[in-house]
């Protein structure tokens, strides 16, 4: 992702970008019309190129109206995706999942590497209150809202009150999940520095762990409420405990290894990151280690137990400049627009109430923690975005409760789609208003001098 700011781009530059965007869409449109049937791998290669180019150009054009780059990537994916122009089909979007794996591992590594102990100490009080209030107040309120509108939902028809309470609690957990990728994406673009940026990053990374624990807890509580034969079992917690401790242990080991490599070798980091992103993510899944947490711990160790953090962050930023565009554009292509069209009244109600309760919880926790004024005003702004983590939770819930799982998941997809589009815009707006975005120009240099004529 390119940096924020930079020299003012002229109308001619914007016109060139717009024309190039048309060429990009035009080339793929023409090719897909000539060869509608295609071999899978060709579709994947074309789609990566298209999403990368169209995402970059769309983000540049949307920048003129103050929207974040991330919205541009999403929009390029939505327009080119299976529901509008059908330049990238469903199968191709699924085939691009390795890019998502790589992007998520880079995001978690970078997230961990951004968390410095001294910074965490400075926001510890606010973080503790925010985690407590956001995770309890928002969960309870959203469960209440879900309960209130449950009779309008087809998949809850015929459920008794206790079962509805169980399902509502699960929705509550889904509502308190955030998007580390959106947060990192906006921070990478804006290079924001300040209390809102620091708090957002620390809170969202921490909330990842909290949400995983909350989900296990709510699954345990909801099971006997929803199914008459179910009973409360602590076994889930034992498994979760092992997974969390194992993930942290593996992450610390990886972090130490990375720090040693960065110190002793320090070259070819792109290939090392690719190997980690592709190879280790799969290995972690195989040995039941939470890869997000493990990479988070690894990044944290590199930053706090060595002086190699900036080097790691710089490499991730370079690699991510390409990977993140494809990741978010693929997310855009993945958005189920017809489903959103069908479920929008309920989805809008749920998203609006979630945003309202998040703001209220943010104000309460800031007051209790005696946060600085800027944090009281904008601390909630990064918490609206939802993306892959929320969808992942909905898959887990759908698998745990197949009787209503599909409907629940569809509603989750629709709600997440809205939050995914609106959240980044709000966060960037808040960072701009808080004066934390970087206004300095990125490194630009003139071209190399031409060789003398022979």
């Amino acid at each position: 992702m390119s940096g924020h700011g930079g020299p003012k781009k002229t109308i001619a530059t914007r016109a060139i970008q717009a024309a190039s965007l048309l060429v990009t869409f035009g080339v793929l449109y023409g090719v897909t019309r000539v060869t509608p049937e295609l071999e899978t791998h060709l579709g994947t290669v074309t789609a990566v190129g298209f999403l990368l180019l169209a995402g970059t150009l769309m983000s540049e054009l949307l920048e003129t109206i103050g929207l974040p780059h991330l919205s541009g990537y999403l929009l390029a994916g939505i327009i080119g995706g299976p529901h509008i122009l059908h330049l990238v089909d469903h199968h191709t979007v699924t085939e691009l999942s390795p890019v998502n794996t790589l992007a998520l591992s880079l995001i978690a590594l970078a997230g961990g590497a951004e968390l410095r102990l001294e910074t965490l100490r400075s926001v510890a009080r606010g973080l503790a209150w925010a985690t407590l209030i956001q995770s309890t107040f928002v969960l309870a309120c959203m469960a209440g809202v879900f309960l209130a509108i449950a009779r309008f939902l087809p998949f809850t028809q015929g459920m008794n009150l206790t079962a509805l309470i169980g399902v509502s609690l699960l929705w509550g957990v889904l509502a308190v999940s955030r998007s580390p990728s959106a947060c990192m994406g906006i921070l990478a673009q804006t290079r924001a520095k300040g209390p809102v940026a620091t708090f957002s990053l620390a809170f969202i990374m921490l909330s990842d762990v909290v949400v995983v624990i909350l989900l296990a807890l709510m699954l345990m509580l909801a099971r006997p409420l929803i199914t008459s034969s179910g009973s409360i079992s602590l076994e889930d917690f034992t498994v979760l405990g092992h997974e969390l401790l194992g993930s942290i242990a593996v992450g610390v080991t990886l972090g130490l290894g990375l720090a040693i490599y960065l110190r002793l070798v320090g070259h070819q980091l792109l290939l090392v990151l690719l190997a980690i992103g592709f190879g280790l993510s799969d290995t972690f899944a195989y040995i039941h280690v939470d890869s997000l947490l493990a990479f988070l711990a690894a990044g944290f160790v590199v930053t706090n137990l060595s002086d190699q953090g900036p080097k790691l962050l710089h490499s991730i930023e370079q690699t991510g400049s390409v990977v993140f565009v494809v990741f978010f554009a693929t997310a855009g292509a993945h958005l189920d627009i017809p489903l959103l069209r069908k479920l929008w009244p309920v989805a809008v109600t749920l998203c609006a109430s979630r945003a309202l309760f998040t703001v209220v919880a943010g104000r309460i926790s800031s007051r209790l923690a005696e946060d600085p004024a800027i944090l009281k005003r904008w601390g909630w702004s990064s918490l609206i975005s939802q993306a892959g983590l929320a969808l992942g939770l909905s898959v887990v819930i759908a698998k745990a409760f197949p009787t209503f799982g599909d409907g629940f998941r569809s509603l989750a997809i629709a709600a997440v789609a809205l939050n995914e589009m609106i959240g980044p815009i709000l966060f960037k707006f808040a960072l701009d208003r808080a004066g934390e975005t970087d206004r300095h120009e990125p490194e630009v240099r003139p071209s190399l001098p031409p060789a003398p004529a022979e």
Partner: protein
Amino acid sequence: MNAIAFLLGLLVLAYLGSILVGGRAIRGFGLASGAEYLVLGFVLGPQVLSVVNRPLVETFQPVLLVGVSWLGLVLGVSYLRVGQRRVPVPHIALGVALSALVSACVSVAVFFGASYFSPLPRVEVIALAATAGIVCSETTRHSVRWVVERYGAKGPLADLAADTARASALFAALSFAVVSAWLSGAALQGMSVFERVLVSLGLGVVLGFTATLLLGREFRRDESWGILLGTSLLGTGAAARLNLSPISTTFAMGLTLAIVSPHRLDIKAMVTPTEKPVLLPLLLLAGAYVNVKLPMPLLVLVGVALGAKLLARVSCGALLSLTLKPARGVGLEFGGSMLSCGALGLAVALAFSVRHPGVVADTVLLLASVGVLLGEWLGPGALRRALARAGEIKTEIPAEGAQPTLPSQV
């Protein structure tokens, strides 16, 4: 072996390749063409140890397609310059003419050989002859660079060798566009071969112009990666979907950038170091793709093609020694030095194998692979002797770890 383990293996190879160009290793390390990785791939592949089986190799077809196309882009971007030095137009013309001549000789030999020896239908005979000519037409610039850097060569013959090797890529890229257009399957049925070639190259030119405009007046390295990768992948995918030649499209794109972009040197400096990291995994994959269990007539044809290539190269060298001053008195050695082939020939053979699998493609890939080994065996030695006789290098081998006396001819 599963796909992830194989991918990690390829990344390790890419890592090794990046170290080789990163200046940490002695220049001239390893073999000039990277033939050892080709052999490694063959040994690990389905023909010998079966550590890497055919379906596994085939799961890496997207990587292969992207890799060969990226090589096309690198060759296009770096086509007009050796280091910072411009390649003179007469040297470009000479390099292209030599490639065309060798290609024609090989194609004719294979065509008549195949007509007599093999039971292949006429269309396949023509495809085989044309593609065999293309894969034999290239001289790898890595071999020249390897010799020049290892022995500290400097002079007009070293420059001529470097320039003609670089120029040879154009013929292969263009003629493969023609062959792919001629063989084009279901797509673009309403178009003539000429129009398909225009689409193939035109797509590259349009994307090259688009990239040039997007890179703008100022050069931002991070943004440039996104633009270059995006345009090249879009071109690769679009050309492949139309059953055209992705290598030719990306080569045209690279050449357009090299001609019109004000940042041509930055772009060249950016993409050239990626060549080895891409090439080594490709060589391994190519080795794993090689099929030696071919009918005897096709194996004989491989021998015929290599014989024709050897003869054509040596004749070209003899011809040059009569007409060009730097090559005077070293014609045979210089001709032998042009036997070295590598990246482009193999990339063409691989692309052909992926798009048109079958015995013809297997024969072409085997020819390209054996050509790489033969070139490795004969080429660098011949060039060293030619340069020594021309008085452009010291004859003794430099001590281990000695610094090269010339800047890299990237």
